[in-house]
């Protein structure tokens, strides 16, 4: 899968790396069950800090898109629903960014999201 990050962007590099995995999963260039490159390897490829990559991987783990296994690296969660989940998470982030642009506070955005669930 392709990783591309822009240090000039306002988005933290770790989040950009997470977005690459989400995007690859959503468009099918990465498959459920696939193994991600080791954090150290990817950091060396991109020329960024290992901790930056690990922050990105940690975010993906919190979102339930990857599993981190000691000594075995990062694995995209197996199962057919992972791509759909990645698409949903991408849209959620887009919505959050749009809300910020509109000047909404986090609390207001969450209220709207809750209202949307009812």
């Amino acid at each position, binding site marked *: 899968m392709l990783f*591309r990050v*822009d*240090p000039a962007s306002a988005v933290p590099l770790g989040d950009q790396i997470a977005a690459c995995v989400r995007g690859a999963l959503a468009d099918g*260039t990465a498959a459920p069950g696939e193994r991600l*490159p080791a954090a150290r*390897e*990817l950091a060396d*490829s*991109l020329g960024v800090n290992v901790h930056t990559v690990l922050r990105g991987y940690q975010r993906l783990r919190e979102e339930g898109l990857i599993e981190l296994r000691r000594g075995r690296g990062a694995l995209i969660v197996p199962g057919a629903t992972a791509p759909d989940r990645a698409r949903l998470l991408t849209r959620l982030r887009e919505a959050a960014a749009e809300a910020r642009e509109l000047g909404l506070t986090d609390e207001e955005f969450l209220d709207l999201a809750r209202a949307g669930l009812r």
Partner: protein
Amino acid sequence: MTTAPLSAALRVPTRLRALAALPFVLAATAYPLLFAVWSGRLPDPLATHFSTGGEADGYTGRTAFAVLGTVLLLALGAGWTALVRRGALWGAWLTAGLLGTLLGLVVGDNLDAADPARVVSPLSNLAVAAAVGGVLALAGHALSRLVPPEGPAGAEGGAGPDAPRLDLGAGELAGWSRATASAPLTALGLLLLAGGAAGALFGPWPLLPLAALIAVPGLALARVRVNVDRHGLTVRSMLVPRPRVHVPLADIAGADVRQVDALREFGGWGYRVRAHRTGVVLRSGEALVVRRGSGREFAVTVPDARTAAALLNTLAERRGRL
């Protein structure tokens, strides 16, 4: 996707095939002759499997062992004749020398034995076989000069304008990484190990280490990770970090994606060296092909190769501009 003309590189001279078949034909002729000449002096069954101390612990019928050995030599000979290339002719002679000598020595150990259980096969047989194999390998290498070198590959310039590119911002950092596995290589490796184990049970025990020697590197290559980044192209086994294949970005003249046929273009799976191309060939199908500064090609079969080629071309050009 382009398909390069392959006819030039594929044509194997008849003389080369004959030279590859020759050592096997000789061995497969000499081996049954041993049985004919020594027919009255060999026990039946023969001691054909030995403990590490050299004492016999496995037996095979005389006729069965003669047929088995001859068929094995002929089968290997057929394989080498079909897939031989000029730079590997020595391998055919090495294989025939090793196997032929081992078979012959085991039969020789049985000579004049009243009781096959008391036949002893010294470990030095292995050293003798290795020495004979080595000498024959040298001979095979010398004989390859009788065959003219393969013709030059089609010369092409840098990455063509229709080669894939990636729309990458000037300050953007990018890398591509993909894990890929080979079903044929895994199957062949496991089959070879199983065959070696079975061979060691019923035949000469050195078959097992011999099989492992070939199967283990094959299995290590069966799962690889392909990386494309600011350093260039790197292919390494997922099991061990080294050895790896690395093509530095500075050495990349162009990259493209192509459909490759493992058997037709590379004569099999694994790490393959051909006259003008090298490859890590895990399956037939989509491959990332890079042209090096020297004109040689390096190919690795990997899914999503188009993205990898696009990134390589873009990175190589970006580097050229700096």
